[in-house]
């Protein structure tokens, strides 16, 4: 309770300084305290041409009274490994990020949703820089359908939405009156239990919902975050993919043609992002 009180105070302070009541309120690189944990199985096909490129990861939606944080288990592991290394560097013990044994994931975002402000804030990394942008929940114009079905033990109702170039079908339940879901998906009158795009490239399945007996602290991450807009963030992503070594070369590193072609191949195989536009 104390911590959430602190958060509320912080939120207020931040909102006033931002001169707008409803902005993202949490300082995102601080730990997040959750009362409820939802676990999703997140399955995606990273290469639209290769149906064998299907990967399955575990994703978490951490919820407290005011807001929620969504990310994948591997992303949390990556961030915590990085935190250890940075802490050691700070202590001048020297740190090396060991690549072996590190989880491999192309997911490097955390998504925060504020229930009162109806806002969706994304913190995502391009190369090594973290960016933050906020969208209103109204970008998700849900259409509710009369179909009902039990999914994962909950009475669910179907809904559809189009977002960033894909059409999605969702099953939400009002047995859990939490207007939230995996990734940015939220704004329905109940928790999203299953969501998949119509091409079945991306799907999210609720595996567990747990009320935490003692509030749990979700570890944050290190490093600065740069404020931007979604449009500018996407532009930056495209620029990086077009010339991924620009930053490295500007620092005087030598990039061989082999490195370039290998990296181009890798990006070519990751041709199926969740957000197409």
């Amino acid at each position, binding site marked *: 309770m104390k911590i959430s009180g602190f958060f509320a105070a912080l939120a207020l302070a931040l909102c006033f300084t931002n001169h707008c009541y409803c902005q993202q309120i949490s300082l995102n690189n601080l730990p997040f305290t959750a009362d409820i944990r939802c676990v999703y199985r997140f399955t995606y096909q990273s290469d639209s041409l290769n149906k064998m490129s299907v990967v399955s990861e575990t994703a978490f939606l951490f919820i407290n009274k005011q807001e929620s944080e969504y990310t994948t288990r591997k992303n949390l592991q990556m961030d915590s490994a990085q935190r250890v290394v940075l802490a050691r560097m700070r202590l001048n013990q020297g740190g090396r990020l060991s690549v072996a044994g590190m989880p491999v994931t192309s997911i490097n975002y955390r998504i925060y949703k504020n229930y*009162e402000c109806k806002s969706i804030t994304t913190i995502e990394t391009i190369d090594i820089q973290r960016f933050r942008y906020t969208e209103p929940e109204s970008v998700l114009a849900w259409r509710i359908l009369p179909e009902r079905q039990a999914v994962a033990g909950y009475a669910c109702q179907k809904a559809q939405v189009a977002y960033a170039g894909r059409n999605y079908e969702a099953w939400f339940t009002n047995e859990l009156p939490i207007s939230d879901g995996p990734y940015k998906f939220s704004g329905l009158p109940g928790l999203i239990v299953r969501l998949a795009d119509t091409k079945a490239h991306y799907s999210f399945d*609720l595996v567990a*919902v747990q009320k935490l007996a003692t509030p749990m602290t979700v570890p944050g991450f290190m490093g600065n975050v740069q404020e931007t807009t979604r449009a500018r963030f996407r532009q930056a992503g495209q620029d990086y993919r077009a010339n991924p070594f620009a930053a490295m070369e500007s620092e005087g590193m030598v990039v061989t043609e082999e490195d370039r072609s290998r990296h181009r191949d890798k990006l070519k195989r990751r041709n199926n992002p969740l957000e197409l536009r």
Partner: protein
Amino acid sequence: MWPRFRSAAALLFWLLLGGSRLAMAQTSPRTFAGTVTEKGGEALGGISLTVETRDNTVLAYGFTDEAGAFRIGLETGPDSVRLRARSMSHAEWSVLVPNRSQQFAVVLTPGEIKLKEVTVKGAPITRQGDTLSYKVDAFANKQDRVIADVLKKMPGIEVGGDGQISYEGKPINKFYINGQDLLESRYTMASNNLPADAVQSVQVLERHQPIRALDSLARPENAALNLELKKKVTATGQARLGAGWGAAPLGPLWSANVSPMLFAGRQQLIDTYQGNNTGQDVAAELKPLTLADLQQGSELSTRKPDLTHIQGLGSPPVAANRYLFNQVHLLSANHLVTISPENQLRVNASYLHDVQTQRGGAQTRFFLPDNRTVTLTEAKSNRLTFSNLLADFAFIKNVKRYYLKNTLSLDGRWDAQTGDLARAETGLRITQQARNPFVAVSNRLGLVRPLSGGRIVQLSSFTFFSNSPQQLAVQPGAFAGLLTGGVPYDSARQQARLGAFFTNNSAGLTLSRGGWAYSGQAGFSQEIQRLTSTLTTSAEPDLAGPPLRNDLRWNRGRYYLEPGLSRKADTWQASLSVPVSYYDFRAEDAPLGAGQRLRAVVAEPSLSLRRDLGPLWYVSASAGLSNDFGEISQLNYAYILRDYRTLQRNDAPLPRTQTQRYSGGFYFKNPLKSRFFNAFYSFSNSLNNRLYSSQVDASGAVTTVALDQNSRALTHSLNTSASQFISPWKTNLSLQASASQRQQPQVLNGQLAQTRTQNATVGLKMSVSAFDWGSLDYNATLTALRSAVADGPATAAARVQEHHASASIFPTGGHQFTLSGDYYDSRGPAPTVRAVFADLLYRYAMPTKGRKIDLELRWSNIFDTRQYQYSFVSPFQLAQTTYQLRPMQVLASARVSL
């Protein structure tokens, strides 16, 4: 055409749906608006409000703003609707109202609502890339003790009678425990003794390359199995002791199995002692079930030769524990130690001693072309002694940038056989005694080293040395007509020794660029063998008689080049290999002045293709040409007494078979739905330079000679299998069907005829463990077999049915009763034979903490079925073999999980 039709249909659909809705919306748009406050007057933001039908279908919804105000528009709907407000920190509020625009002042009372918590059970099978993971808990039931019990029930996985594990119809190439290869090819020692509850999951590693340095390059078609244990360090195993009594001639029975195991980070071990006289065939655990890494083709000369033997009885097509009269001891030690992060040492040593007795009879009727029938009846009583020492010492380094493995193996067998035989027609009694020892030492070395630029160097070397001095004594002497000029004599003694040396060495280079891989391999193999044999008779041999001494020196050299090309893309791959070999073969029996030499260049191209049709389907096809040359057992210029009624001389050109093979199949798997299906067809056309001609005389003696004439055999076969796991019922269903047809010429008593054999089998397997109080297993196979000569009428089909059913019930308190029954039924041209077996098992799992202790009482063969008859039918003969089975027996045992 299609897209245009589709867009027209879509437009129509839109008009029907969207258009009508638009019309309604114009007539009656309603608004539900108002405020939400907490008791005491404070406005509540972020509360969700829904407008629902009476049966709780949401029609429209909205949220309150910071001032607690909401506004929900509804276009249409029933006469009355329910407005409901929900929040995690307030009690739910709802009201049923007429469906018209209206205002509400909602007051919520604070209060945590109880969260409906759910943990969805994970799917029983999950897929991650090329790995399928089967959760053991989802497939196991209470009666499963060892992991093989559970493997049998996993869809897509099959366990054969000898313990061989297959996935999608193809045998696995590796059996790992926590990713380590402790047992290599003899993995049944683990699958039959590792407690199922120590295993977390069974992983199928599809298209598994055991050599990590080749991982990116070549992906074999076969899968590997990995058992992921629950704990990082597992000390487990089982111990079982039993005693009992069997009806005469069995008497007292005993059985023991002590198998401690340890799986830790740096070492793994499985040791076992197993012994019994209850009919359990523990020797099956020593049977190699996979090929060695880098092994190319078969290594024929490394097998134990069968030079001479007593007249055997064969084994009936029922489970081994029904007919095996044994007295077996098996001691085995298997240790794997990681001596440094990349290097491992492994020792696998086993000793087996087994004394088996067989009793039975055989009656063979030959239908000769001149309408005569010859009958041969034998009653047999055999005693077989097996002593086998096997030891492998291996050094293994298997990392991405280096593969080095050297295995030194020792195989010693000291086998002996004695047999008493009575011929009903002549009243003759024959005693036979044979010794067939065999000692072999071999060394296998493999090296794979990736260099820069995608090149990989491979070296492989295999050397083998063996000696096998065998002998057979027969009383009274056989083949008096040929050997002693018709004078009956006391005894015949056949001595035969085969010494063999074999080496195969090759070096290869592989280049890969993009999706292409080019490989080239050059090597040679040399096989040097010497066969000496002497047949002596107690009577003076006929001096002008046939040659009875062999001294055959055999030398076969093969020099080969194997270029290969493969292309790997995202969804398909193809590989072509064109090995070209030069064979130089010499055989010479100097004392007999006989010999032959053959030099030949042969090409054996093969092509295989595979294409993925999405994540669930793939198709594969292959075609190839192969050449097989005969082996030394098919060449002897002087006579050898193979058994008391087979005197054989092979004075013919070396046999050679050229085979064309074509096959294609498709495979489906949906791990989410636990559904597997595959079907494949193959065709082979083989040309043999020998045609076998059999001559049956009036006494039933068969003389077979090889004619120097080409014969062609055509074989078609079709196999399909499907399996489905029904998760909520814990039920696995699998169905298998296969059919084959073989056509080949045959000569009997001088008449040449084309014979055609057709075979069809359907199998069903079902295992149901839906309830806590019981489970059911059932499997059945139906086989139909028929053959025909030329275009003549086919013989009546022989139909064989086999049914095995077992039902278990688990009343409370750790008790278990299992009743199982086997039913065999064969009918057709031979007399109908039926056999029924029933067994009862009572097991009590003691309520101990930690260690699991089971007490067991097993009552086998309740109906005391003592005989089984098996018939074999061909256009020329009807062979009926009668086997004596184990009578009723009772065994009490205690089992402890270590």
